[in-house]
């Protein structure tokens, strides 16, 4: 089999779908022969990105979140996209502990976690248009 594959899933921004997104990520990764730790790293990163779309992108209203998984050899690329309110200052949003919703007890660590657990994270956003987070990670590279 060629090590190429792509899956796109679109779902409503209900918080229950945060768990669904993690399961989808874990399922997509199984073909990579990943370590358990790698699966958990990717699950954590996607959970952060989807939670951001639910809480910040749509602020509790219901819109569509699209996940795109792509395999490029041993690298997985995950795109999480919403069409919500967008981010005004991306650099500020990425600062650890910075949050626009302290009243919801947000820890402000979402982007820091994505960056800690993935190899590369790109955030693109326009106010009132939405946000797209593109994350990549090499998995299943261990010596057997």
């Amino acid at each position, binding site marked *: 089999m060629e090590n190429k594959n792509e899956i796109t899933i679109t779902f409503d921004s209900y*918080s*229950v779908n*945060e*768990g669904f997104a*993690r399961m989808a990520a874990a399922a997509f990764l199984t073909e990579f022969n990943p370590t358990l*730790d790698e699966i*958990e790293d990717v*699950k*954590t990163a996607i*959970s*952060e990105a989807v*939670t951001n779309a*639910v*809480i910040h992108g749509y602020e509790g209203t219901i819109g569509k979140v699209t996940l795109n998984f792509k395999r490029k050899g041993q690298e997985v690329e995950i795109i999480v996209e919403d069409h919500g309110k967008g981010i005004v200052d991306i650099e500020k949003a990425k600062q650890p502990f910075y949050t626009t919703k302290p009243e*919801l*007890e*947000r*820890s*402000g*660590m*979402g982007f*820091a*976690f994505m960056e*800690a657990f993935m190899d590369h994270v790109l955030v693109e956003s326009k106010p009132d248009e939405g946000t797209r987070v593109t994350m990549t990670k090499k998995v299943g590279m261990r010596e057997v």
Partner: protein
Amino acid sequence: MENQYELKDGFLRVRIPKELDHHSAIGLRAETDMLIRTYHVRHLIFDFSGTEFMDSSGIGVIIGRCKNMNYSGGSVEAEHLNARIEKIFLVSGLNKIIKVHKN
């Protein structure tokens, strides 16, 4: 969610669910705060023995409870962390603000 909460002599033990994310955090936070207020809890223990996943939403819940308990002079502890949850505690720095019992 039977036996998720255990109350005794000012101690409250909260069994964290299998996955602590934004979705599961909402109910857990409300119930825990209600018990703390109603029963004048002074010592809060988060039991992670059944927990396999936690993200930054879970960290927000724990830090929030720590702040509330500190105001009232109470204590907060965490126990039975598996390797993954320990990693999350480490990466977030949570291990520096909450007492973690080694298994």
